């Protein structure tokens, strides 16, 4: 079995990483929020509401990034039958779901002042919505099958099928978006942005990533202990 296959080895690694990740997270959040809320200019068009972008875009990025993590974990779990990789997928998915939910929420709160309606069928927002359903499907499949190991591998297959389809979905939604509504709402996230706006965005992106590492390790520890519990209780049953 691989070096990281047993939980004790993983816990040691996690305990080594956690303090550093927390420090980076705290620093990046503090500095990022300072930049985002105070030390960056308002947009000439959107005014102060552009500040919502600083937490909307990182959330959307992390929503996508987390699904990639789930897909890689699923691939490892299926190809090398690695039990911890299986649990990593299960641990990461809820975080991805929260990021996706936040991206949608902040997208709506950003759209309302500008376009007068909360929901705008903008290409990127719609892709994030579809991603939300992919997360729901993955997590529902984990719970649907009674045997944990089978449920994990079934969900892993779904994640791999999903990750192959994500670029196709993204492309088709953007295509559909230009077809029906040429003006795009969220143009403000490309590098074409003024530098003063890029810094808060990147800082908060780092903060979100560090946050992801911290919570993923928390949830991995949780999943490992839950697995141990089911193992121990199955032994109790046989006495």
């Amino acid at each position, binding site marked *: 079995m691989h070096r990281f296959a047993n939980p004790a080895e993983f816990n040691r690694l996690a305990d080594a990483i956690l303090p550093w990740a927390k420090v980076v997270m705290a620093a990046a959040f503090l500095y990022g929020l300072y930049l985002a809320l105070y030390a960056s200019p308002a947009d000439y068009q959107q005014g102060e509401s552009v500040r919502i972008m600083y937490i909307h875009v990182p959330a959307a990025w992390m929503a996508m990034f987390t699904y990639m993590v789930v897909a890689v974990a699923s691939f490892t779990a299926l190809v090398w039958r690695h039990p911890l990789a299986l649990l990593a997928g299960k641990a990461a998915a809820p975080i991805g779901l929260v990021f996706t939910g936040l991206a949608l929420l902040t997208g709506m709160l950003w759209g309302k002042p500008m376009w007068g309606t909360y929901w705008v069928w903008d290409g990127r927002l719609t892709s994030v919505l579809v991603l939300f359903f992919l997360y729901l499907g993955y997590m529902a499949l984990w719970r649907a099958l009674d045997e944990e190991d089978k449920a994990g591998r*079934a969900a892993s*297959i779904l994640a791999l099928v*999903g990750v192959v389809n994500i670029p196709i979905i993204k492309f088709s939604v953007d295509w559909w978006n230009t077809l029906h509504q040429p003006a795009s709402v969220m143009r403000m996230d490309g590098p074409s942005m003024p530098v003063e706006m890029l810094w808060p965005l990147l800082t908060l992106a780092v903060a979100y990533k560090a946050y992801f590492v911290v919570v993923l390790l928390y949830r991995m520890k949780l999943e490992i202990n839950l697995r141990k519990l089911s193992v121990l209780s199955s032994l109790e049953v046989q006495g």
Partner: protein
Amino acid sequence: MNLCWTTLPQNLKLTRHGCDRGVGMNGAGIFGAIFARDVRLAWSQGGTGTMALSFFLIAVTLFPFGVGPEPQTLARIAAGVIWVVALLACLLSLDRLYQADYEDGSLDDLALSPLGLTGVAAAKILAHWVATILPLVALSPVLGMLMNLDGDAYGMLLLSLLIGTPALSLIGSVGAALTVSVRRGGVLMSLLVLPLYVPTLIFGVGAIDAAAGMTDALPHLAFLGAVTLVALVIGPVASAAALRLSLE
């Protein structure tokens, strides 16, 4: 009669070794047998053929009651409604694609066929598409009339359904295989599969609207075909992997 297998090549076409009358082992024969049996079952009593067709008819006729009978309104949403309902009919009929075999134990036999589970899945998907989806496509012009679809779009309606619906069967098959051991897995399957149907729906309807609006529908069809090809690569392989899980 002497069975003289030594080592059999592990590809689809397993040729007979120079036996005098050994039992033949041809992959095409096996594929055809599975296909024929599934098409037969789809249209036998309790099969999905009639069910999908009647759902398709009834569900589309509901829309005029909902949005009102004005021809302009119906015409504008005709392509979208027909495609969405065809998609749902496909999803409904896929629920039992593997579950029936799983419950009566014949999934074990399917897994033991020399064709291999990927070939078996491909045969069953093709049977589902031919037996359950083609009738819908054949009927779609009638529903086009009901929905006052633009006159020039009928050809494109058929063409886009023909090119796009195989992807629905292929991806839906993966959902069916993943939920084969789940009681009432149909609801879960739709959650797993519907997000993956979005590209097919967008390009499918896009082609029809382009034809109706006298613009070039070719790009839509090209992307629709591309999505189906990707589904063709993923569908049988992922379905076989999922089915192997349920055999353990």
